[in-house]
């Protein structure tokens, strides 16, 4: 150090005499540069946690990721990242990630290391062997060509390209039990929105929230679960919008809202029904919108009987089969076509075929296309006077949903209820719009799809669909959960919401298509989409002579949802299981059954970043402690493959607003970590190599598969770009297509997912577009690519009057330019560009031509928004309130207690609770925290997140704490008929007892993120939940069930099941309890 460097010298010589600034600056400080400045490159990426899809910049230096932060160019996130997004560097580069393959042999007590190549070979062998062993050519005399011996779960955290390969390979192998988080998360959304509007995705996009005049957040904890998206709510609020939060708990969302409305969990249909009633009674509907754009005027058959007539049932219910037939719900003049696969068991006949009563999430195929109708022109009465028009039916149906009833059912005081009504009505109409935002507070109920339907009905009545600031914002969960529904790793769907075929006698492609395609609207072109998909999968082998390999598809025979898979595992029929990015041992309802199912497998493959609970249940699962399982006796072979992170692979995520956003690979994965794309592709290659030369027709589908992607890099990573191109589709010359309207049914086009057709338009990866937000208008159409056809606000034809002019200047979005003879505006019109508002179809027009110039819902069979659903939702054409499966209260609205069509799974580990009684007196609701992510695999092993919420807790009101002797910070044990857990107690005013049916009920809040592994550990909330499913979507009811709470920690060892049993005995629970219709 020279004298000149000595601060004392500098003090004496320079201006900083007191030695508090420049004089004492060290050389290091003077030369400081941020590590972002010294990075070798920056990869453009997308946050891997939630579906807001915030953009990230990934800084790489010396082939290591050194920093990840928000990309300010993104129009949705503007460079922001919530705590999870901000922890991505630790997630992807932290020390808890695994980089070696692990193997647990049958009965093994510990992990062994295995080299990747051997492990891949072993898995390929297991797949082939199990498939052979469990091959099912026929099921009850009908050809099915499938295996029920293998199942797969996971996909919402994966790229679209990965889901595509999983679905393609497994389907060709005859595996039908392919599922992902979309089932447990938002499947009811697809049913609810799809049936109502024609597409199952959020109707708008996040930034458009700023244009709302009133935002009702209900069934969502927006600020905590989609924090970066919440900035647009704050923006709306700053511009004067009213924000209302309807939630059982006062949350961080409530804290920023103008009004918090505490509601009893599971009663939203009563609440929304009350608002619908208010709107109808006070004639506050947006009449011109309603008459023209909804089916309010449509006349329903005489045979229809309402819950009013049948005390809680609709007509057509088959008590024995526990299902409805749609026959009596039909429009006059256009009967509903039963959803595909139900074709030869049209509702009403189904009781002959009781095997199939769980007929399987059909509603979900309305992800892009509403339910089909047989005719094209149902009868209408545009004066809305006809006693059987939908409007009048609706009015009668909701008449009993009075403010007093809302108070009685939901515990919401009349005065508060009226405030909400007023806010909504005052902020709807030509000049104003209101928006609903919901998420899994609505979806995860035994009537989940109907919760969402109720909001659809209300928003249609208020004219809030297709308009700026209007709509229904379905806040989806994982980074690509929308994508994993669009390119579904779901048993009942093929890409683009095409239905998986059911087993039928003598069904061919034509009859299959006819059964399912609508007569009118864009869904009428289903054959184009279907054939193009078959061409994408089976290439040149697929010809018109062989029905384009239609019979290469395995057949369904009922529900094969993830919960049915668990039952198959417990029954010993499902023997091999792939878990690729899902953690059912914590995240799925009735976690114990999930684990016991896995414990009954021959082999299990887990692909994840770290050793999640679903990989280690044989070692440290709760059943080891209670003695219900023994490590030594358990014979399941477990393979753990380390997964590559999103920074280590390229691909696209589809965010909650249907935006496909490309993320670039920043670095190569370390060690044995590989992408799921790599895993599936190389597994496929190995299986095909092992089967090569087979003459067994069973092997044809997999051997005929187009399975030849270019590979790159040191690990022979298949090109995700090439997969996306296949998804986009090509014409006969092999050129990339630009729009799904180009698809043909003659085999000249191929397309892996028709709704994604256009994502590679002009040979450019449109999903990778990153034009900075501040160089675009508010629509930001050149950032990423949204399906369909890059439209950002769906049904935006409805933003204009029937004559094509905007409803108002303030709310203009697209309009008819008469001079140009075209629709134009800020967004891509969701309408045929040159179809004039005056256009009226001829009587015998069909397909798209049958849509008139005033039919904004172009995927619907009648072009209208459905206030009343003559088909598509299996438990009723209109939402009706039923009590949750486990409820402390009788249904105040009808004699029918629970949703009659709900699916129950009675089992010794899945007992239900009686109505009322004092054994399980409290209402539990489960949910998330900002600081954690879902089943915890991505947050409990990340110390920056784990330390923020280090232990599981339950939230209780001071009143409950006082009456039960619970102490803040102390322990509590919570008991249901399934199991008991312990959690720390937070006593808080944010929980309030609410008054229902003349008595107070306490609600207990329980975040569900924990399990035994990771840095922050504890009991999983899903030990408590049971399996009860919504009939249309097969989503589980985890948002509400009743329970008891008591102070202290839970018993250990066998004393735990004993406690649960004692409670059951006290409540008189039997195998029949709660299973009645």
């Amino acid at each position: 150090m020279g004298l000149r460097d000595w601060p004392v010298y500098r003090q004496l010589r320079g201006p900083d005499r007191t030695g508090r600034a420049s004089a004492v600056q060290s050389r290091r400080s003077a030369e400081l540069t941020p590590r972002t400045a010294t990075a070798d490159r920056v990869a453009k990426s997308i946050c891997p946690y939630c579906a807001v899809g915030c953009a990230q910049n990934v800084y790489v230096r010396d082939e290591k990721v050194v920093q990840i932060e928000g990309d300010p160019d993104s129009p949705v996130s503007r460079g922001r990242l919530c705590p999870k997004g901000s922890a991505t560097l630790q997630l992807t580069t932290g020390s808890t990630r695994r980089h070696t393959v692990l193997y647990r042999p049958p009965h093994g007590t510990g992990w062994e290391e295995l080299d990747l190549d051997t492990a891949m070979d072993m898995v390929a062998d297991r797949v082939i062997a199990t498939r052979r062993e469990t091959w099912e050519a026929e099921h009850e005399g009908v050809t099915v060509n499938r295996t029920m011996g293998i199942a797969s779960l996971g996909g919402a955290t994966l790229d679209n390209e990965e889901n595509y390969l999983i679905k393609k390979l497994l389907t060709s192998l005859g595996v039908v039990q392919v599922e992902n988080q979309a089932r447990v998360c938002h499947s009811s959304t697809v049913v609810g929105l799809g049936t109502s509007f024609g597409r199952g995705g959020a109707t708008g996009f996040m930034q458009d929230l700023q244009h709302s005049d009133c935002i009702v957040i209900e069934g969502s904890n927006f600020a905590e679960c989609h924090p970066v998206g919440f900035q647009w709510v704050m923006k709306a609020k700053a511009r004067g919008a009213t924000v209302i939060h309807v939630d059982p708990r006062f949350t961080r969302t409530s804290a920023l809202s103008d009004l918090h409305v505490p509601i009893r969990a599971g009663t939203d249909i009563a609440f929304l029904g009350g608002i619908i009633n208010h709107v109808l009674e006070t004639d506050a509907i947006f009449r011109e919108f309603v008459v023209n754009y909804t089916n309010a005027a449509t006349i329903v058959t005489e045979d229809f009987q309402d819950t009013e007539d049948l005390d809680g049932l609709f007509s057509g219910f088959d008590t024995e089969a526990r299902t409805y037939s749609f026959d009596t719900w039909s429009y006059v003049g256009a009967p509903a076509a039963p959803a595909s696969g139900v074709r030869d068991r049209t509702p009403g006949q189904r009781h002959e075929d009781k095997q199939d009563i769980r007929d399987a999430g059909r509603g979900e195929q309305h992800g892009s296309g509403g339910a089909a109708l047989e005719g094209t022109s149902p009868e209408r009465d545009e004066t809305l006077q006809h006693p059987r028009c939908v409007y009048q039916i609706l009015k009668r149906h909701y008449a009993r949903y009075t403010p007093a009833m809302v108070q009685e059912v939901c515990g919401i005081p009349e005065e508060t209820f009226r405030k909400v009504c007023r806010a909504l009505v005052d902020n709807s109409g030509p000049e104003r719009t209101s928006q609903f935002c919901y998420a899994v507070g609505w979806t995860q109920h035994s009537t989940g799809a109907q919760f969402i339907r109720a909001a659809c009905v209300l928003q249609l009545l208020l004219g809030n669909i297709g308009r700026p600031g209007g709509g229904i914002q379905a806040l989806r969960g994982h980074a690509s959960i929308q994508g994993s529904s669009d390119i579904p790793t779901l048993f009942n769907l093929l890409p683009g919401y095409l239905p998986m075929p059911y087993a039928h006698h003598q069904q061919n492609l034509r009859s299959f298509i006819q059964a399912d395609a609508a007569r009118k609207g864009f869904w009428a072109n289903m054959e184009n989409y279907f054939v193009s998909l078959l061409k994408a999968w089976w290439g040149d082998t697929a010809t018109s002579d062989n029905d384009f390999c239609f019979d290469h598809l395995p057949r369904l025979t009922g529900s094969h949802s993830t919960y049915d898979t668990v039952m198959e595992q417990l029954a010993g029929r499902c023997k091999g299981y792939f878990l690729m990015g899902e953690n059912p041992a914590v995240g799925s309802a009735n976690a114990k059954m999930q684990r016991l199912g896995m414990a009954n497998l021959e082999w299990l493959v887990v692909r994840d970043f770290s050793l999640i609970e679903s990989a280690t249940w044989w070692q440290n699962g709760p059943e080891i402690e209670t003695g219900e399982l023994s490590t030594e006796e358990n014979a399941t072979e477990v393979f753990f493959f380390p997964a590559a992170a999103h920074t280590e692979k390229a691909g696209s995520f589809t965010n909650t607003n249907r935006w496909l956003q490309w993320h670039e690979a920043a670095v190569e994965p370390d060690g044995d970590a590989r992408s799921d794309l790599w895993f599936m592709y190389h597994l496929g290659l190995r299986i095909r190599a092992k089967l090569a030369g087979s003459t067994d027709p069973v092997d044809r589908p997999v051997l005929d598969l187009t399975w030849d992607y270019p590979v790159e890099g040191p690990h022979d990573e298949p090109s995700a770009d090439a997969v996306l191109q296949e998804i986009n589709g090509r014409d006969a010359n092999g050129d990339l297509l630009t729009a799904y309207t180009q698809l043909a049914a003659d085999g000249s086009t191929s397309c892996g997912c028709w709704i994604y057709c256009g994502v590679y338009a002009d040979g450019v990866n449109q999903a990778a577009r990153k034009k900075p937000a501040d160089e675009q208008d508010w629509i930001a159409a050149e950032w990423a690519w949204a399906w369909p056809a890059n439209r950002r606000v769906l049904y935006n034809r409805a933003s204009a009057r029937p004559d094509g002019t905007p409803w108002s200047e303030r709310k203009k979005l697209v309009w008819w330019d008469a001079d140009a003879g075209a629709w134009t505006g800020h967004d891509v019109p969701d309408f045929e560009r040159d179809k004039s508002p005056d256009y009226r179809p001829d009587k015998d027009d069909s397909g798209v031509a049958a849509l008139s110039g005033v039919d904004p819902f172009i995927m619907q069979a009648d072009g209208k928004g459905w206030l009343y659903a003559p088909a598509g939702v299996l438990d009723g054409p209109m939402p009706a309130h039923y009590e949750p499966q486990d409820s402390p209260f009788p249904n105040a609205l009808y004699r029918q207690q629970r949703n009659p069509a709900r699916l129950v799974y009675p089992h010794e580990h899945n007992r239900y609770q009686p109505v009322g009684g004092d054994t399980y007196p409290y209402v539990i609701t489960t949910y998330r925290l900002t600081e954690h992510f879902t089943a915890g695999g991505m947050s409990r092993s990340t110390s920056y997140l784990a330390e923020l919420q280090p232990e599981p807790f339950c939230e209780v009101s001071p009143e409950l704490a006082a009456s039960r002797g619970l102490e803040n910070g102390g322990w509590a044990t919570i008991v249901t008929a399934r199991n008991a857990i312990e959690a720390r107690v937070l006593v808080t005013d944010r929980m309030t007892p609410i008054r229902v049916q003349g008595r107070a009920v306490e609600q207990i809040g329980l975040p569900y993120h924990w399990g035994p592994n990771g840095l922050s550990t504890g009991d999983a909330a899903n030990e408590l939940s049971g399996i009860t499913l919504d009939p249309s979507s097969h989503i589980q009811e985890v948002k509400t069930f009743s329970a008891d709470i008591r102070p202290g920690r839970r018993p250990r060892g066998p004393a735990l099941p004993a406690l649960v049993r004692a409670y059951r005995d006290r409540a008189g629970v039997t195998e029949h309890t709660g299973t009645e219709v």
Partner: protein
Amino acid sequence: MTGPVRDGTDVRADATSPPERTAVVGARKRGRRGRRGEQPMVPDAEFTSYYGRPVLNKPTWHAGDIAGYLFLGGLAGASSILAAGAQLTGRRALARSCRVGALVGISGSLYALVHDLGRPARFLNMLRTVKPSSPMSVGTWILMAYGPAAGAAAVSDLTGLLPRAGRAATLGAAVVGPAVASYTAVLVADTAVPSWHEGHRELPFVFVGSAAAAAGGLGMIAAPVGEAGPARRAAVLGGVLELAAAKRMEAGMGLAAEPLRTGKAGRLMRAAKALTVTGALLGGVLGRKSRVASVLGGAAALAGSACTRFGVFHAGVASAEDPKYTVVPQREQLDRRGG
């Protein structure tokens, strides 16, 4: 729901505003609801805090190191003055013991200081700068001047080498010694710690009194009764000064005096008082005759001084740990100001 009127400044304006969309402002402006007047959150609490958590981060200093440093530094500084006086008045034994005492004291003090550093190897960074705003920096430079002088004085005395230089060094150390004994009061007072800062006017007197008592105590122990007269007087004088200053200090500290009277600090302060009084009486009065009384009295004076330093130290820590001592006086001050 009549939300207040807002016009869009709390989320930064950006380029994504839609065409022709004006902020919706209805007739919805309204006053604060239900004006009910003040509603204390917790009715019986005298002050509010965040879950009872301290406002301040408490000192990370270790008591043994830093209270020891205060004590030993004081001992050294005052001893040097006694040494010089003894030298000038020909009390050779007293001079020697004070010189040695000063060296031992300052060495121990320095050791404690370095020992307490989180990065002892970086002790020399203290010499990067001369910072008048930092009592520790000023103190370091004082020590830099004082340490060598005190060392030279003692070494020369013990070895007999360079006697003239030794005598000069003794005088030099005596000149800097008072600063050594008093700057530590500024050091602790120049913090946000209520029980340290609030006494800042009197604390230097407490500290120099305590230093004098300690040096006197040491002199009584080490020097023969015949030469120890100044030491005895120092112990008495120092004790009186310390106790008087402490009393005055506490009286002026308001709420921040409480930690000096309670808990560990209170016990130490009471012990300090008793020991100091004992030292003064035993050494100062009986010590004139009795060597035993002299030694005992000297030890009591030393111990009393040490207890004062530890007492003050712990009182400070306690006052930092309880938000009351930060919030209540500041709130009172605000309320006074606010009227």
